């Protein structure tokens, strides 16, 4: 009992064969499509490390069934930059020291990227509310806030 899943990931049409129905979108991305940037830290949508854009909205890829992702348009951390240059939010995460162990970083980048697309000039409280679904255990979040503020500033 396996299925074929076809989707557009970071602008590229990709197909995974022999996918078992119980696999998550996250598993398919990581183990079948060679895109391990999205991280698996809790497997129940409670940490945000696997956050991807699905149809333009942030979701936890660990809770999306592989079959449900059929035909979907996905953006992962691997698709944020243009291959040559890092996206602004990627640059500011490095510059601000928002990256320590980095395991939460891909999910946070996607969430912050989404926030800044919707609200280019968020207040601190708005940044906090938007990123509340992404746990980080290393940084105490202070420099993550700096990175998002800096990215908003650079975009102005």
């Amino acid at each position, binding site marked *: 009992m396996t299925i074929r899943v076809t989707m557009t990931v970071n602008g590229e049409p990709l197909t995974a064969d022999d996918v*078992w129905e119980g696999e998550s979108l996250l598993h398919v991305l990581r183990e079948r499509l060679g895109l391990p940037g999205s991280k698996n830290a809790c497997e129940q949508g409670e*940490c945000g490390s696997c956050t991807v854009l699905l149809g333009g909205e942030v979701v936890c890829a660990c809770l999306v069934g592989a079959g449900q992702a059929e035909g979907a348009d996905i953006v992962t951390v691997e698709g944020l930059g243009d291959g040559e240059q890092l996206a602004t939010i990627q640059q500011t995460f490095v510059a601000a020291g928002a990256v320590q162990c980095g395991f939460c970083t891909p999910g946070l980048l996607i969430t912050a990227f989404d926030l800044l697309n919707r609200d280019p000039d968020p207040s601190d409280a708005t940044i906090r509310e938007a990123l509340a679904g992404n746990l980080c255990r290393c940084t105490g979040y202070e420099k993550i806030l700096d990175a998002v503020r800096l990215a908003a500033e650079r975009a102005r």
Partner: protein
Amino acid sequence: MTVSTEVRNRTAGGIGESPVRPDGTFKVTGQFAYSSDLWMDGMLWGATLRSPHPRARITSIDVGPALKLAGVSAVLTHDDVPGEKVYGLEIADQPVLAFDEVRYQGEPVVIVAADHPETARRAAALVVVDYEVVEPVTDPREAVGHPDWKPVHDEPGERTAMSRDRAPVHPHGNIVRHQRIRFGDPDAVTADVVVQGDYEVGMQDQAFLGPESGLAVPADDGGVDLYVATQWLHVDRRQMSGALALPEEKIRLTLAGVGGAFGAREDLSMQVHACMLALRTGRPVKMVYSREESFFGHVHRHPALMRYEHGADRDGRLVYVRAHILLDGGAYTSSTPAVVGNASTLGVGPYDVPNVGMDCWGVYTNNPPCGAMRGFGAVQAAFGYESQMDKLAAAVGLSPVEIRTLNAVSEGSILPTGQRIDSPAPVAELMHRLDAMPLPGSVDQDIRLLPGGVSNTTHGEGVRRGVGYAVGIKNVGFSEGFDDYSTARVRIELVGDEPSVLVHTAAVEVGQGLVTVQAQIARSELGVERVTVAAADTQVGSGGSTSASRQTYVTGGAVRAGCAAVRSSLFERAAARYGPGEFRLVAGKVESLVDGVVGDIASLLLDGPVEHTVQWRHRPTQPLDEATGRGNAHVQWAFCAHRAVVDVDVELGLIRVVELACVQDVGKAMNPDAVLGQIHGGSAQGLGLAVMEEVQVVDGKLRNPSFTDYLMPTIMDMPPMRVEVLELADPHSPYGLRGVGEPPTISSTPAIVAAVRAASGVDLKRVPIRPEHLVAAALCH
């Protein structure tokens, strides 16, 4: 020359600067390979079957049904362990796979390899294990000597090379270690003012985000290569060597990307299991724990029960401290002896106390094993002694800052172990600086930043503000006579026409920035900006553990020493080329102290590369006397203080930490941004312990092994921080630096609790504080 003096006098990216992390770009693009990202053609997936019982005898194990499942390659039990069946950091008492008896819920019993992770999990579930359930020991008070106590271990574990000489193990009991501190005359002394208190610290989880994982690859020589996330490659290898019955040189470990550690990776998890499966199947085997399994797969912070009595004169000057500290070590030894050592020797805090009587026990129970977590031992004691200092302040009419500065240790103070503090100990200054910092403004206007967060519970009504202070002390590095060293291989050579330095150690980067600081040291020492830090592996000597705030100190010391050896060789070449003299290396140039720039470093390398490998150790320490706690046990102390400002909605039991202010002495800020990162992150973990984090164990069973139920701070819970960093050099350490990582975790918890007490008037005795502690107490008012 057009180069300015400033540039010539400094090599860019050296110590004291904050260059960007060398792994930063990889981490923000998803290219950084964590241990759970590894992949190899033909690899199998491992899974672990664990005990559902906290205590039971195993009467039989039938692996037959699992082996029959299509896709399964191996199903192994304790019978398949090639070598020693037990392992341990200090004392080998933990089974690789359970035999005869299981002693905690989650203890590994059977391991499986299969072609899909789900197949492996299903196969594990098909194994039939018959258990005869035995009543567990779950109350540490019972374990330590209540008349009804039941022994968890019938026999003591075997001592290993890492055993501390002073770590006693009862031959037939539950006491891992009982450390006494007797200083002055604690039994006879009396005082005008006496305050007492009982305190309790719940079990905290390190909750790193990257789960335990790794890839084991069988090698042609009969050995195995393991790519793994850990804290100490060489001590993993030593334990693996025993269990796998392979000589250490046939076990090669390479550090894979580590998704945080905080102590939870100091003990083995999947290392031996993956290697057993790889060696048995002849195929690469990857194991990745789920979050639930991770809660069972690593040690936690010891829960503590504490009873303190502080005696002081009417002015508030401490006369004596008597204390009992009971630490629940769970089923196996892990690092409980060291945790007892820290809690007892640091148990009165950074205060001058002329008479101390302290008893600290670490005990075995059938609860989950506890071991290393950031600030181990010091965190628990600080909640006790700092709560007491506030009580004492109230009793004698002093402020929290006054009582602490009055009793603060300083350089030259004698600790209760008899050891003299022989480097700066600016405890009073930390308090004064905190006190001088401006307080945040009144209740926040954005309701999302009020107690209750986005829950819309208040618009400011019912909210009371409180301010609390705390200061903590932590030993840096491994204490009590442990031979604590690190090894560095440093090589300089021409790459292209440019001088380039390679730094190679086995010291583990867990996110804290060790790779950055190693390169900074090499730049400053060798005057070369192009520095590469090689992947940590066992091809070089041990770097020691990434724990106890020790890596920048000890591996930093080793890298500096390695660079010094390389530099000496370069100076010999310089003398041969330019004539005898004294030289230095700066920004790619060779400078004679007399003649200025005489040439390029590159030209010294035309004769070939220079490479040295050195071992470096900090000054020796001594064991503690078992009966009195006497001994120069510690190499260095670090001090950190916090002021917490909280808003509390007492009626609803909700707390918002409004601001954390922190002052820490780091000796020398090797990388100021990374220092801030450690202070922010450490403070956040202390906040978590104060107001939400607890592994809930009922009758030996975990109740919340998930991130849905084990709550840790989100970005909504963590307040802005105000941080001041002092740099008072320690004359005994490289560059004068002090360990940074643990101290901020120690004082943030008691500062927050003090602030909540101040706001609510509730006498809080336990962390984490939960809504019911406030709501129920408010009713009584």
